[in-house]
């Protein structure tokens, strides 16, 4: 298969959702847990692709942003950046494969510097620069996670069974730099290296086998939601510890992708993630705190989440790419920055 990308499989999805639009709704879930004794971790939940469930099991141990430079684990924002950059590269290679373009390599570095986002893309093996430039234009339009970065996407908040409306408007400036370098390997498989000291092992990205992948890792949408769930959970842990309460928090993040947007099977389809929601479960061992105190704490944590801010606020990014002659060929094993 060209670029090891199953073009026929994507073509079949295009025609399936034209006949049955309900099959275009893809739902993703991530569940994070912040524990005073066991730290911060995030799992994916079963995904639903139209009527087909994909129940894979992936867990990432996450560094707490409050701890500063992390100890052998990526930060929640690393997960979110991985989701955005890997989605952009998958869109690039997939879209290129549909045009019979053959790639040697495709890399993307995505940096968040004081709340502003910068990109750097390198593409190898495509002889015509115009082809790459056109493809990157299409990525900017049709990559669901990249559009989630550049568009305003509301994020709903719930605590227990109650919705907490109007909580996603706050701007967050973390005052630091977080970056990832994502490398396309083959088909829907990519490898993301969180840049910086002690940010843990590379993160594997892949589509589920229901969507032509091989279950090598969570998919790009799941990484973005993992970042959201982990970040809110981390903020909850930090704030409750500051109040002298050592609580275990569980946060679930869900989102819907209309695959018709990426594939352009329906030109009216929304490309970015939709129905993004964050649900916080009432913490165990919180007897000393009143419900109103906990509700306020949940609101504050949500407002302070930089991944929530990344999703809910429109950003002026742009895929920065230099024609091949000016671009050094990336090494097969990118080093830590």
């Amino acid at each position, binding site marked *: *298969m060209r670029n090891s990308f199953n073009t026929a499989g994507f*073509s079949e999805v*295009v025609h399936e959702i034209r006949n049955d639009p309900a099959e275009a709704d893809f739902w993703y879930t991530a569940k994070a847990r912040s524990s005073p004794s066991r730290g911060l971790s995030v799992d994916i939940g079963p995904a639903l692709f139209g009527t087909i469930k994909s*129940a894979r*099991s*992936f867990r990432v141990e996450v560094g707490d942003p409050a701890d500063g430079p992390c100890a052998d684990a990526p930060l929640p924002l690393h997960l979110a950046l991985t989701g955005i950059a890997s989605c952009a590269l998958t869109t690039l290679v997939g879209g290129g494969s*549909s045009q019979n373009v053959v790639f040697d390599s495709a890399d993307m570095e995505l940096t968040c510097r004081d709340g502003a986002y910068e990109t750097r893309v390198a593409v190898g093996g495509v002889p015509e620069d115009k082809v790459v430039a056109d493809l990157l234009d299409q990525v900017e339009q049709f990559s669901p996670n990249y559009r989630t970065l550049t568009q305003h996407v509301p994020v709903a908040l719930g605590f227990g069974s109650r919705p907490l409306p109007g909580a996603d408007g706050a701007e967050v400036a973390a005052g630091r730099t977080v970056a990832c370098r994502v490398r396309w390997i083959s088909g829907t498989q990519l490898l993301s290296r969180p840049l910086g000291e002690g940010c843990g092992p590379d993160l594997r990205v892949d589509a589920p086998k229901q969507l032509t992948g091989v279950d090598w890792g969570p998919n790009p949408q799941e990484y973005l939601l993992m970042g959201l769930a982990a970040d809110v959970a981390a903020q909850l842990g930090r704030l409750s510890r500051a109040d002298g309460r050592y609580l275990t928090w569980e946060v679930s993040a869900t989102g819907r992708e209309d695959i018709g947007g990426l594939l352009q099977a329906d030109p009216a389809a929304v490309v970015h993630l939709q129905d993004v929601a964050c649900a916080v479960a009432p913490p165990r061992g919180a007897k000393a705190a009143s419900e109103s105190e906990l509700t306020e704490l949940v609101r504050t944590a949500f407002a302070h989440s930089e991944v929530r801010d990344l999703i809910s606020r429109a950003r002026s990014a742009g895929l920065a790419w230099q024609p091949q002659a000016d671009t050094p060929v990336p090494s097969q094993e990118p080093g830590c920055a």
Partner: protein
Amino acid sequence: MTKETRTAIGFEEGRSSEAKWFNDLTRSRFAGPVTPHHRVLSRSVSPETLAVHAGTYEDPVTGAVGTPVFQTSTFLLDEASYTAFSDGTSRDVPIYTRYGNPSQWSVQEKIAALEGSRSALVTSSGMSAIASTVYALTNAGSHIISAYDAYGGTYNLLREDMPSAGREVTFVDPTDLAAIEAAVRPETQLLLFETLTNPLLKAPAIRRIAEIAKRANALLVVDNTFLTPVNMRPLDLGADVVVHSATKYLGGHSDLTAGAVVGRRKFLDRIWAQALRFGGTLEPLTAFLLERGLKTLPLRMRAHNENAREIARHLAGHPEIVAVHHPEIGGGRYADLESADYSGYGGMVSFEVRGGDEAALSFMKRLDIPYVATSLGGVESLVSMPGNTSHSSLTARQRTQIGIHPGLIRFSAGIENPRDLIRDLDHALGAPEEEGRR
């Protein structure tokens, strides 16, 4: 021969070199794979006609009225082959027999037609079909629900291989709908049940189980080996995929080993890819034997149904028989049977001989007509004891829990004259033990 007639219908329409994005791609899922030379009939045609004619390869060179045996492991490479490799459509071009062969496509089309579906896959055995289906349709991290008294091969696959493959399995009574519903988890991805169980002929409510599966966004896979599409079409009742040990009734002559999977290409293409990686290819010569056997399936099933029913009724009143298990006999197990979903119950009848296992062994030795052998579904009657064959790995307590009591015999009625079979049974039940007859 031109490439248009060598490749599957739909392959050429799916080739596109002008696409600028995914929405310009032209391949959609279609039936088959079948070439224009394979005979495709409307699914509304009667089973007897479909069994004879569906899928036949009408050879444009010789005019043969039967499907030729494409006894080859490989095919000439051409532009279509290279396109298939490039686009990921190698199921639709004869390239290599492990990927696909017109002999397989003939029998696949016949089985798909009989089950009322658009696509099927044949494999090297029933277990190859089941293993490929289970692996293809689940992910590591998922959960499966199946019957604690499923066919031994299926049970062993689920119990012994799924834990190391990252799948959890919950085993339930297949007739206990509340237990099935209670077993559902968020990660439940597959429900795997049989239309009629072995050896006690429990009849799970497929239509109701399909509803549970739909509510859980899980897939229902149904093993239809015991009933065949002549007696039940599970896809019509809401199942997503049907599997068969084609070794049994579909082949029908105890002369081949094969499996089959039936359903939409959305699932079948993934199962095909899994089966070819596992190496579960059906040999062209065996595909020919299976296709030939299938031509008489409806005729044979009528005889199997009638013979088992006659035997069950006769034994139900016999003083040497403690219990008879067959839907036609009724009883509490079949109180909720949706009889409208069945056209018959196949050739199997199970019964308990008074006197336990020792008496059962003696009884089998006294039988003249059936062979004492495992398997089922052939034209010849076969008889065996589950306690010392298919279910011998269970503890005595486990056997009792699932209802396999001492003296249980499984009788697979063939298509012989039922009067001869009943006379033989009466003789064996009534005659004193006579060593060395079989």
